[in-house]
């Protein structure tokens, strides 16, 4: 039984005129304690919607289906009532742009104290002491708790956001684009911080990002998302060296590497619209290996052994190199 299992997660958004946007289509994955899983994809692929769905934080125009099993118990089934006790306590999230979402008129320390008191973890002096501990654990001197967010640099604000997420000692930390707006050196600091926090506290990490090299650096495994579904899933090494989905291969090829040879190349075309039913493989219009079956039949995510899975018809053709 995994720590966290998402099964057949689907999210729809209501649009004007009675239409729907099928933003997340049958997403499933599992996370073991202490494991780092990357959820990779470009804008609009549904990765942020997926994690917001996991936490029940979608707007009212969204509807969700599927199961989210936390230690075997479905926390989505009962709606907000079953979800709320687990939010922040078992599953915490550092949102995209969290470093800019700190309340500017309250001290950083008081905001962490607020989290502790809200979840009844500590009050008053105990809360302040625990806040100091949390700040130290993310590399911020405890005496900075009395400062305001604008007195912190970008990197330090991000650390504070991480401290806030750890307030209730969750077993799972979700980080949505934690380093996107940061400089490369600060990014390295934050990634190292996440790395050591996972090791020291046994945290499982779900890292959501569009940046493949960042995932390669921090995560053991990754799930690649495209057009609302997971198109490939497997260990990082295998994803880079033996991709089993053209999108994975092309995405790596499009990413410039510091020392690699050759020039990166774009993937032509645009992702499909998710407010219309899809026929065939969602990637076939942009794929360089598409064939007849790809235009008619939608591939299903299939296990390929060695803890890998991919949704591509090419894997059915024996010994075909994707």
């Amino acid at each position: 039984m995994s720590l966290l299992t998402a099964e057949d997660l689907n999210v729809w958004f209501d649009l004007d005129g009675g239409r729907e946007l099928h933003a997340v289509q049958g997403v499933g994955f599992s996370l073991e304690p202490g494991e780092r899983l990357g959820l990779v994809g470009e804008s609009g692929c549904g990765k942020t919607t997926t994690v917001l769905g996991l936490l029940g934080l979608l707007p009212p125009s969204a509807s969700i289906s599927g199961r989210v099993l936390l230690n075997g118990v479905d926390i989505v089934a009962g709606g907000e009532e079953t979800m709320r006790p687990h939010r922040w306590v078992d599953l915490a999230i550092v949102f995209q742009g969290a470093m800019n979402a700190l309340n500017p008129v309250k001290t950083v320390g008081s905001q962490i104290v607020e989290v502790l008191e809200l979840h009844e973890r500590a009050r008053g002096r105990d809360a302040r002491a625990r806040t100091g501990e949390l700040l130290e654990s993310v590399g911020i001197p405890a005496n900075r708790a009395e400062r305001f967010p604008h007195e912190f640099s970008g990197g330090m604000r991000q650390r504070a956001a991480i401290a806030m997420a750890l307030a209730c000692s969750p077993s799972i930390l979700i980080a949505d684009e934690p380093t996107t707006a940061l400089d490369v050196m600060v990014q390295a600091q934050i990634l190292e911080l996440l790395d050591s926090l996972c090791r020291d506290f046994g945290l499982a990490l779900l890292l959501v990002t569009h940046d493949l090299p960042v995932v390669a650096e921090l995560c053991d495994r990754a799930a690649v998302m495209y057009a609302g579904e997971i198109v490939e899933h497997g260990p990082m090494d295998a994803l880079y060296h033996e991709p089993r989905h053209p999108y994975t291969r092309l995405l790596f090829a499009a990413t410039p590497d510091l020392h690699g040879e050759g020039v990166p190349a774009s993937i032509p075309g645009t992702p499909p619209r998710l407010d219309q039913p899809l026929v065939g493989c969602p990637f076939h219009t942009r794929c360089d290996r598409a064939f007849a079956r790809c235009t008619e039949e939608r591939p299903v995510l299939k296990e390929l052994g060695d803890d890998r899975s991919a949704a591509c018809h090419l894997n059915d053709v024996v010994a075909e190199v994707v």
Partner: protein
Amino acid sequence: MSVVLQEPAALDDAVPVRSRRGIVWETVKRRPSALVGAGLLALVIVGAVLAPVLAPYDLHEQVGPVFGRPSWSHPLGLDDGGIDMVTLLMWGARISLVVGFAATFVSMVIGGAIGVTAGYFGGKVDTILMRITDYFLVIPDVPLMIIVAAIWGPSLFHIVIVIGILLWTSTARVIRAQVKSVRERVYVKRARSLGASHMRVVLRHVLPQVAPLLIANTVLTIAVAIFDETALAFLGLSDPSRISLGKMIENAFQRAAISTGAWWAIVPPGVLVAVIILACSLLGGAIEDALNPRLRVAHLSARTFRLRPLVGRGPEAL
């Protein structure tokens, strides 16, 4: 693994984003308050414009006794000169609207020009213009009008000027704020760095973004202008030879309509002024709301879940 790729001309027939140009029209179509406001306003304007044609009686013809009671032939009775009230209302609305629109035009031109200049150039120009605006803001309207009437004599022209001079300040401030924010948009900076002249940037890039707000502000200003005119006329500071709605109220007041019990001489013009002002406020307010994205607060609503039954795409779906 080298793939020769070119990003082809794949165009998304995207769901069109509402262009700002259509916002005014879109709003009027969609929001009930805007429709009501626009409808009322249209009605009054049509009535006033077509007064020469539609008015049941002649404006200067006495058709009955002083303060004649309402009857079938005169649904709103007669005024202090025995003239049909309905006729008077139509003609009076005409003057009120003319003054209202003219004063608003004056204030829009002055306020718009100052707002755009201050917002676009910033710095010292902005500071000086804003200080001037502040001084005008402080001037009390009625005393000014009394002085103007005393020195130059009361006339419609003077009223229009006075109201226009007093109203432009709020327009200037609103426009300035908007221009300042548009000025910082990347495409405006880009146009400047391309070498575009200030004139070109303002006309082509800044004004179109500011126009919807200017429209909303103008409509709201009309309401205030008409109110001001009514008040000034009621105080006897308006052109005595022209009948406006405010003048009608003043006349009735002066001729002791109240003590005579002739409510029909005072109430209808007052109600009509109120209706016009309400119509402008509804329409202008609706347009303003439509332009302000921050008024959508769905993200603040309480958390609820909408669950659907499991979908699944086959047993291999994990």
